[in-house]
C-alpha cells in the first residue's frame, strides 16, 4: 500500500508547522524544530525523526527543495518552500481561517484572538 500523499488537505500538525517555518526563510532541520518551538511557545515540539520523516515525503512530493549546505555546518542542508509548497500552505491556512470563523460565529472564540 503506497503512502497517502502528504500534499493533501488537511495537513498534519507537524507538516503545517514545518511549512509555516519555511515561509520567508530557508532553514536547516534543527532550526525548523527550534523555530516551531519558539513560535508556538513550546506547544508543538517535533522530534527529529518525525521532522525528517515529513521532510523526506515533502521533498518527494515537491513541496520543499534543498539548498546548498550552509557555510557554518557543511553537512546540514537547508530547505526552501517551493511554489507548490507555498500554495498548499496558503490553502491550509485559508481552511483553518474558515474553520476559525465558523467557530467564532458560534461564539466559541474570544474576539481578540479571532482577529489576530
Amino acid at each position: 500500500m503506497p503512502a497517502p500523499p502528504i500534499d493533501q488537505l488537511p495537513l498534519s500538525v507537524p507538516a503545517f508547522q514545518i511549512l509555516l517555518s519555511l515561509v520567508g526563510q530557508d532553514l536547516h532541520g534543527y532550526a525548523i524544530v527550534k523555530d516551531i518551538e519558539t513560535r508556538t511557545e513550546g506547544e508543538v515540539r517535533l522530534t527529529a525523526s518525525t521532522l525528517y520523516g515529513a521532510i523526506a515525503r515533502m521533498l518527494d512530493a515537491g513541496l520543499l527543495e534543498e539548498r546548498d549546505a550552509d557555510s557554518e555546518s557543511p553537512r546540514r542542508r537547508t530547505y526552501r518552500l517551493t511554489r507548490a509548497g507555498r500554495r498548499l500552505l496558503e490553502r491550509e491556512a485559508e481552511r483553518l481561517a474558515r474553520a476559525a470563523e465558523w467557530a467564532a460565529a458560534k461564539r466559541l472564540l474570544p474576539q481578540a484572538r479571532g482577529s489576530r
Partner: protein
Amino acid sequence: MINRWLRHLVFSVARRLPLSRRAYLGDDLTATIGALADDARAAGGAPGERAYLCRELIEVLRNAWVAGHGRDVAREPPARRLLDACRDDVRASLRQWRRRPAAAAGVVGTLAMAVAAVVTTFGLLTAVLWRPLPFPHEERLVFVWESASDERGPFRVTSGRFSDWERGIGAFERVAAFGAAGFSLDSRDGAVPVRGVRVTASYFGTLGVRPLVGRVFDERDEAPGARRVVLLSRAMWQGRFGGAPDIVGRDVRLGGEPYTVVGIMPDLVTPGWPSNPARVAVEAELREFWIPIARTPDFAVSTRAHVLGVVARLRPDTTAAQANAELSSLTRAGDEDRHHGVTLSFREQFVRDVRAPLLVLFAASLAVLLVACANLAALQVSRFEQRRSELATRAALGAGRVRLAGLLFVDAGLLSVAGGVAGVWLSSLALAWIPTRLPASVPFLTAPALDLRAAVFAFLAGLAVTVAISAWPALRLRTLSAAPRGVSLPARARVYRGLVAIQVAIGVALAVPAALLGESLSALRTRDPGFTVEGVLVVDVSIGSHAAAPLGRTARFERDVTDTISAAPGVAGVTLAYDHPLESNWTQVIAMQGEVPADPELEGDVHLRIVSPGYFEALGVRVLDGRSFEEREGGDAPGVALVNEAFAAAHGGRVLGRRFRDTAAVTAWGPAVPGEYEIVGVVANERFRGVDLPSAPAVYLSTRQFPQTSATLLVRAANDATDLPSRIRGLIRGVDPAATIGQVRSLSDILSEQLVSRRVTSGVTSVFAVAAVGLALLGLYGLMAVIVAGRTRDVGVRLALGASPATIARTIVVESVGAAMVGIVAGIALTAVLGGFLEHLLVDVSARDPWTVMVVAGTVLAGALLAAAGPARRAARVDPAVALRSE
C-alpha cells in the same frame, strides 16, 4: 553513561529509518538529534537529555514500525498508530491461519500439550521442593538420627541417646522425640484399630504448631502414672466423634484405657511413625491422635530399642554443621553401638525420595517443549518461504526490517499465546487432579497449585517459544530483497534438516530413559520378593494389651483363628506374623555369642520377624538350610530362631547352631520368653525393605515362644475366592467377638503402592517420549515433503533422462534415513552423557544398556522410513512433462 548508551541506541535505530531514497537525510537526522539532545541537556541537565532521548527513541521506533503501513505517520495519535500496527499484524496472521484450520489446531494443540506438561511438572516441583513448609522458621527445623560409621543407617534413636541430646546439645533450642502408637478404639462398630503418634511434651513446641482447640502436652503429662491424656486430629474428631463440640475434657477409650481429650490438632503434615533407615511417615491415617511418651526411669538410660524419631529446632545463631559437630563428639561410656547423631533438614527428609523422579519428569517435559519448539520453528521456516513473495512485496512498499520482524514475531506470539493459555488451563486441571491420584505417602506438605512462580515461569516459557520459533525467519529477512523470488532450497533445507535432527536427538534422548525406566519397573514387578504376593490378603488383628491377654490366651487365639480360617472355603493357606513382609519395621539390637566384642557395630540392628511356625510354608519362603519352627516348641522349650541369608552372610556364613541374646524381649515379657535363641535354620531373603532394595539381616522368632497380642493375619486365597476379603472379618469375629480388626488389604495392592512413584515416573516419561518422537517424525515428514516439492523440476529432468521411479524414491528414503541418523547419533551421545543422572533410578539395567539403545534407534529409524514413504511415492510419480513445463 546511560545517556551515552541511549544516544547510541537512538542513532543506530534512526539510521535504519526509511527516509525516501535520500541516504544523506539519515546523517542530517542524527546530527539534528545530537543538537536537540545537547539543547535538552543545557536546559534540563542529564535527566532532561534522557527524557528527550527516550521521546525520540519511542518516536523513531514508532516511525519504523508503522512505515510498512505507508500511512502519514504523523497524522495519527502515537498510541493509536502502534495499536493499529499490532492489530493489523494480528489480523493478517489470523487470516493466514484461518485458511488452514487443521494446521492451526495442530500447532496450538501441540504447544498446549507441551506447555501443560512443563507447567504441571513445574507446579509439582515447586509444591514439593520449594514452597515453604507450614512451620514457623522451618529452615531451623531438623531431624536427628543415629548414624553408624559404616554405610548402614541412619537409624532410629534410642530413648537413652535422645535424653543425652536433650541435655547436651547446645545448638538445639528445643528437641523432641516421637514414635508410633497403635491402639484399638472402642466405638459404635466394636473395637477398631487407630494409629497415632507418641510424642514428648516438647514435640508441638519444637515444630511451632498450635492446637485448634484446647492445649498441647506439658511436662506433667509425661510423668509416669499421670492421668492419661490424648490430642485428637481434626479428622478423627470429625470422623469418629461427629465433631462433638464438647469433646475437650471428655474421656475416650484407647486400648481399653480411658484417656482424657485435651485438645484438637489442625490438619497439618507432622512427622510420625519413624522407620529405618531414617524415614518418617506423613500419611494422615497414621496421625489420628497423639499421646505423651511416659518418662519412666528406664527412658533416660535405654540404649537397646531404636524406636524413636527426633526433631530439633536449631538456635537462631547456629547451623546444622555446628549441631552435627556437637552430636558426633557426644558419646557416652558403655555405649553398645558407638552410633553418633546426624541431622537432616526437614525438607531434605521429606523430599529426598521424590526429588530425583520429579527432576526427571521436569527435564522430560522441558525436552518435549524443546521438541515442540523445534517442530514449530521448522514449520515457521517453511511458512516464511511460502510467504516470501508477500513479505517481499511489503518490503518493496516501504516496510522496514524491524516492521517485518514484528510481523513474524506477532505471528509466532499469537501461536504461543493461544497454546500457552490452553496449556496453563490444562495444567491447572492436572494439578488439581494429580494429588488425588497419588498415594498418601507422597509428601505434599503444601498442595500444588498454579502460583505466581508458575505463572512467571509459564510466561517466560511462552516468550522463549515465541523467540525460538520466529528467530530464524526474522534473520532470513535480510535475504528478502537479495534472493530471487521462489525457492532457495539448499539454505532452507539445511536449517530445516538441523531442526529435524534436533527433534530426533531429543526424542531419542527421552525415549531411551523412558524405556530404561519401564524396564526397571517391569524388572521390579517380576522380581521374586522372596515370598508369595499373589492372592495374599493381610489384616491386622489385636486381642488387647499384654495385661488383658495372658500368654495362654494369646496362643489359643492364634491357634483358633488359624484353624477356623484354614477350614473356610476358598482359603489356600493361612498364617500369622507380627507384621507382614512389606511392612517389617521392628529392628532390634542382638548380641551373637562368641562374636568379637571388640567390634560392637557388627551386632547392630537386625530386623526382627515374629512368625507362626507355618509361616514359611504358607508364604512360600524357602528354608535353605536347617529346619523350620515346630508347633511344639513353646515358651518352656529352649529358644530357637531362624535367620535370613543376609544375616548369615553378615556373620560369616556358618551360623547354624550358634546362639544370640535378645535382652529387649526379656525386658518386655519378663521370664515368660526365652532370653537366648539357637539358630536352627536359614531362609531365603524376603525383600521386606521394598522390592527395589537389597535385603537387610533379619532373625525370625516363633510366635509360640514370643506371643503377640497384636499381629497380622496373612490369608492366601484360592484362585476363585473373590469374596474372601468380605468374609474374613466375620470369621475372625467368630473366634473372638472383642478382637480389634483392621482393614483387609492385599499384598499386591500394597506392593503396587510402593511402586507408585516409579510407575508414575515411568508412565509419564513414556508418554512424553512418545510425544517427542512422534513430533520429531512429523517434522521429518515435513522436511521430506518440502524437499520433494522443491525438487520437482530436478526429478523431472532425471526421469526424462531415464532414471527409474524406484531410484528416485530410494534417494528420498535414503535422505530421510540420513537426516534421522544424524539425530539418532546425537541423541545416543546425549543419553550417554546424561545417563549418570538416571543410574540410581534404574534396577537390573544399566543407563547405557546397548539393547535398549538399539531398540529405540531401530524404532525411530523405522519411523523415519514411514515418514519418507509418502514423499518418496510422490517423487516417484512426478510427470516429467508437467515438471519441466511448470518452471
